């Protein structure tokens, strides 16, 4: 792996982690909230609902991988945060 790729990989792991769907969901959620606010709607409940749904869905995906009830195996990058 080249130095640039390792550098990029480190930051990807550091911020996005192993579930990129959460990152995409957060960006979409903020965009939707911004659009709503731009049209005069004060949907303050939208981001909490989206974020908690993303968390639940992410947990569902993680535990589906360890569906026998055994501990979930984590990538090295996951250990960087949390």
């Amino acid at each position, binding site marked *: 792996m080249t130095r640039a790729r390792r550098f990029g990989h480190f930051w990807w792991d*550091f*911020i*996005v*982690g192993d*579930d990129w769907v*959460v*990152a995409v969901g*957060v*960006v979409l*959620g*903020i965009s939707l*909230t*911004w659009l709503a*606010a*731009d049209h005069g709607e*004060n*949907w*303050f409940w*939208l*981001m*909490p609902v989206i*974020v*908690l749904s*993303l*968390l*639940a869905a*992410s*947990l569902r995906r*993680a*535990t589906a991988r*360890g*569906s*026998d*009830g055994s*501990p*979930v195996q*984590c990538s090295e990058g*996951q250990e*960087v*945060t*949390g």
Partner: protein
Amino acid sequence: MPALKSEILLLAAVALATTVEMVEALTIVLAVGVTRGWRSALMGAGCSLLLLGGVVVAFGPAVVHIPLTGLRIAIGGLLLVFGVQWLRKAVLRASGYKALHDEDATYASERAAAVAAPGGGAATVDWYSFTVSLKGVFLEGLEVVFIVLTFGASQNRVALSAVTATVTALVVSTIGLVIRRPLSRIPENSLKFVVGILLTTFGVFWSSEGAGIRWPGSDGAIPVLLLVVAATSLLLAGALRHQRARLAATRTAP
């Protein structure tokens, strides 16, 4: 009054995150220092702290000058991605799907690796100790810097956040270096759960505000959000624990 509450929560988040990360960094430095000598291990940790200080000095004043609306969208979004990761892992740990973080086990494995590594010697720099310490402190510290800058900038309190993190780091490292053992009695896994909840709460609050939302009760909405995020996370952890127990029972049934 609500503004004061949100500041207290902000400082609590910075202090708790710093405690968690410093306990992890300290375990690495202690393992290397006890096994191969303190000089190079402390040099590595010191260089890393200088590097982290440089990151704060370089980016701290810059982020303060970014317009608050854009800053809150960007920082709220980053905090959310980061916070949901923490929370996800905390829930997985609490439900037994992921092994708990064990500082004693980390300490033992770092010590074994330090013993096995070649090199050392009192007169020269032990590059193994130096590098392992530098890398460990830098990686853990970078998360603290990230939290200090994002939390501090969004509340216009970068200096206060940095002072809180520095004092917490000094207290934790002094205790660790005095007792020369990993701080395994600190309830690290529970602290990580709390930090995940705080990061997610502030992430939701700031990203929504940056996108143009007016929160009912202004800053007073933060404790309510905190309760909602905490309750949902605990419910998810409980449900997963139950699911895991049911799967284990099905597996052992004849």
